């Protein structure tokens, strides 16, 4: 006969439930998923034992193929096979056109801010392509871990701008994933190394991926990772190494630049093989088939290769120098340099980086997996599986944010490398008598001219009461949340006219577009939209009930008086009741909101009590 278990008062009777969470490295060339199991973070393989999923999606008339099989078809079916979607995500049609000459895809002429690629399965946006990759990885994790994921951490290059971050989050929404946090790739790598080494001090993370380069300088102090500065280039990576090698081969073999797409793809693939071979050998033999049926034979030595890629490496070193300056540290204060990204396998990169920082770069964790492993560790922490106080990441916004002022100049409101979350406000005024509206143009970048910065959004504050020029006080507030996403608000101070604006990036998908894509993705999977929404709200309700019950058990008696306790208990009981009986997501959502409103004061009191406890060990006298 089983004995009835009785918990200690104040302790939860249920054993701590391990929540399933995963970290996803959504890369330009390859993607990975990792998770913490029995305290160990590791990448998860597919059924064939492959950990790496090539970030390639092929659209045929009746199916969507993701990964190695798609990559294999890239040469034979270039128009329907989308590789490096990460280079296009969050970009405007205009941006893509400037990249366009190098891309084999046909872009559809559609009336949307987001570019669409024509495929055999219809027009697809880079966001949807990324969503397909996320779906495959999430499914792999759910199969391996044996249950639904409560949430994921997705990594992005530190240098990604607001539009690119928002688009990545949109991709996760379309894939039906709950995103705990977007995490900067170099920070993820630092987490993977930091927890291994327990090394307090300043670290540099040099991350050269397929399409992006990031450098981060961060300080680790008793479990707190503080990013001091970050920099890089969102359009520089190993693909560019392949490109310079391919261009060299074309010059040697006399292949014209306007050759057929499949010829160019084959050359790029050959260039990549050559680059990889040169990591272990001094010289590589090349054999290129020509359009006229002939062929060209030659060799590329390591010295020649170094000469070709040195200008690209120099660009990365300049960015390292700038990041050190922003962090206010010199190279000799940097304890070590962590190498991340497959492109750091190139010996020349290790050599030049080691020279600059005057230390041997760390390469002991597989540079392809280190980001996913760090993301998995953070996902595990955010899911609540780790004891409190163990680890915290304090990240920064990578690029300055500002608005357009008179004369096409940018006024910076939040400078780059400010710790997030952050909110800053600036006041502006009208320049004409009786001016009733003001255009606000939000920009991101380091340059002074509007034309040199990235336009994120435009909106208008209307209904300003008529006043003489210069009398109105318009306060524009920028806030950046913990995902690095921007929200902007404008308010006329003297009369309190608040034109509240939810800023959507100019280059982003609209909410309707996202809803439409989510719907079609669900229908494709044979699910029912209403049932899914209700299920989602039930999960949310369960989460809220559990969190509140745990809070009450730990400090409800201490922080609430009898009357308050009754109110909270009653509100909690009402939601429990509703969660069991509710048949529609809207009423359940309203119920959750009602509970949150009823308990707002308690939430605030708990946080304040936490701060007091943290400061309780210190006395003012210490400093006198």
């Amino acid at each position, binding site marked *: 006969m089983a004995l009835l278990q009785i918990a200690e008062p104040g302790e939860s009777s249920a054993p701590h439930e391990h929540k399933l969470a995963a970290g996803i490295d959504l890369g330009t060339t390859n993607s990975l998923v990792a998770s913490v199991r029995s305290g160990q973070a590791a990448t998860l393989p597919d059924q064939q034992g492959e950990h790496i999923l090539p970030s390639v999606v092929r659209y045929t008339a009746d199916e969507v193929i993701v990964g190695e099989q798609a990559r294999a078809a890239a040469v034979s079916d270039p128009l329907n096979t989308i590789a490096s979607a990460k280079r296009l995500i969050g970009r405007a049609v205009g941006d893509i056109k400037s990249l366009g000459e190098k891309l084999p895809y046909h872009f559809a002429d559609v009336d949307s801010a987001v570019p669409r690629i024509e495929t055999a399965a219809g027009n697809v946006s880079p966001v949807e392509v990324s969503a397909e990759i996320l779906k495959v990885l999430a499914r792999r994790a759910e199969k391996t871990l044996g249950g639904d994921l409560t949430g994921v951490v997705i990594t992005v290059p530190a240098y990604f701008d607001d539009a690119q971050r928002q688009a990545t989050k949109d991709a996760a929404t379309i894939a039906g994933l709950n995103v705990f946090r977007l995490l900067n790739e170099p920070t993820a790598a630092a987490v993977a190394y930091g927890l291994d080494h327990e090394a307090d001090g300043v670290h540099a993370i040099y991350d050269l991926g397929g399409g992006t380069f990031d450098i981060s300088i961060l300080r680790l102090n008793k479990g707190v990772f503080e990013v001091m500065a970050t920099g890089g280039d969102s359009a520089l990576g190993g693909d560019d190494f392949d490109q310079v090698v391919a261009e060299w081969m074309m010059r040697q073999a006399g292949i014209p630049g306007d050759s057929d797409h499949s010829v160019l793809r084959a050359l790029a693939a050959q260039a990549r093989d050559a680059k990889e071979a040169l990591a272990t050998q001094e010289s590589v033999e090349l054999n290129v088939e020509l359009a006229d049926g002939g062929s060209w034979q030659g060799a590329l030595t390591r010295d020649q290769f170094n000469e070709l890629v040195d200008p690209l490496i120099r660009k990365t070193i300049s960015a390292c120098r700038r990041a050190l300056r922003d962090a206010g540290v010199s190279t000799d204060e940097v304890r070590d340099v962590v190498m991340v990204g497959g492109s750091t396998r190139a010996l020349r990169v290790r050599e030049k980086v080691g020279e600059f920082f005057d230390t041997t770069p760390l390469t002991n964790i597989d540079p392809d997996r280190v980001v996913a492993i760090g993301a998995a560790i953070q996902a595990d922490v955010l899911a609540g599986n780790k004891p409190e106080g163990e680890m915290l990441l304090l990240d920064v916004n990578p690029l300055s944010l500002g608005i357009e002022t008179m004369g096409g100049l940018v006024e910076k409101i939040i400078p780059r490398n400010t710790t997030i979350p952050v909110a800053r406000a600036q006041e502006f005024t009208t320049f004409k008598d009786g001016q009733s509206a003001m255009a606000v143009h939000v920009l991101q970048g380091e340059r002074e001219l509007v034309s040199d910065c990235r336009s994120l959004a435009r909106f208008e504050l209307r209904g300003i009461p008529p006043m003489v020029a210069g009398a109105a006080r318009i306060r524009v507030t920028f806030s950046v949340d*913990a995902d690095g996403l921007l929200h902007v608000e404008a308010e006329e101070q003297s009369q309190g006219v608040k034109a509240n604006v939810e800023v959507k990036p100019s280059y982003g998908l609209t909410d309707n577009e996202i809803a439409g894509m989510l719907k079609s993705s669900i229908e494709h999977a044979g699910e029912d939209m209403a049932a899914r929404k209700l299920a989602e709200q039930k999960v949310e309700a369960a989460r809220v009930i559990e969190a509140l019950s745990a809070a009450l058990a730990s400090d409800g008696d201490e922080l609430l008086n009898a009357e308050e306790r009754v109110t909270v208990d009653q509100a909690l009981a009402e939601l429990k009741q509703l969660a069991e009986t509710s048949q529609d997501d809207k009423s359940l959502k309203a119920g959750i909101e009602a509970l949150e409103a009823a308990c707002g004061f308690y939430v605030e009191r708990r946080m304040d009590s936490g701060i007091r406890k943290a400061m309780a060990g210190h006395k003012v006298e210490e400093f006198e």
Partner: protein
Amino acid sequence: MIDFSKNYFDLFGLPVAFLLDAGALAERYREVQKVVHPDRYASASEAEQRHALQQATRVNEAYETLREPLKRAMYMLELNGVDTSQETATTRDGAFLMQQMELREALAEVPGQDDPLARLDDLMVEIASLIKAQVAQLAVQFESGTAEQLEAARESVSKMQFLNKLHHEAESLEAELEEMV
């Protein structure tokens, strides 16, 4: 919740003084963030997440204000009811203004020099030592705290703004010069 009427020094349990222990400030900042940061509430209700976001934002603002001497000085003037808005940011110190003009001229001439980076480095060291001198003055002025000394602190703040701007321009020039190498 964090009492919004509380000043930034109280928030970190530090005495209101211009001279502060930077190590202790950093340590307390990290401790407070461990309590309020949104990452601690990633699985909590939306209301808690919103609240954590507000609190963490406020704590970051407080930390940055106290960490940087110029911002700290401006904040302390504000606590004492002294206006530091741009319209009043001036100095009548003729010798200081003359020195500023000379430094600006020297900076403009840097690109034409034989070893521009070395010359720029000398200038940046000079500007940094002038900033340091102002910080030392501010410590004395706030220690005293009389109306005259606070007015003197306001002027020191204006001078630091000039000097910081100059230092920033020197940094931009350095970046430009390094790009050309």
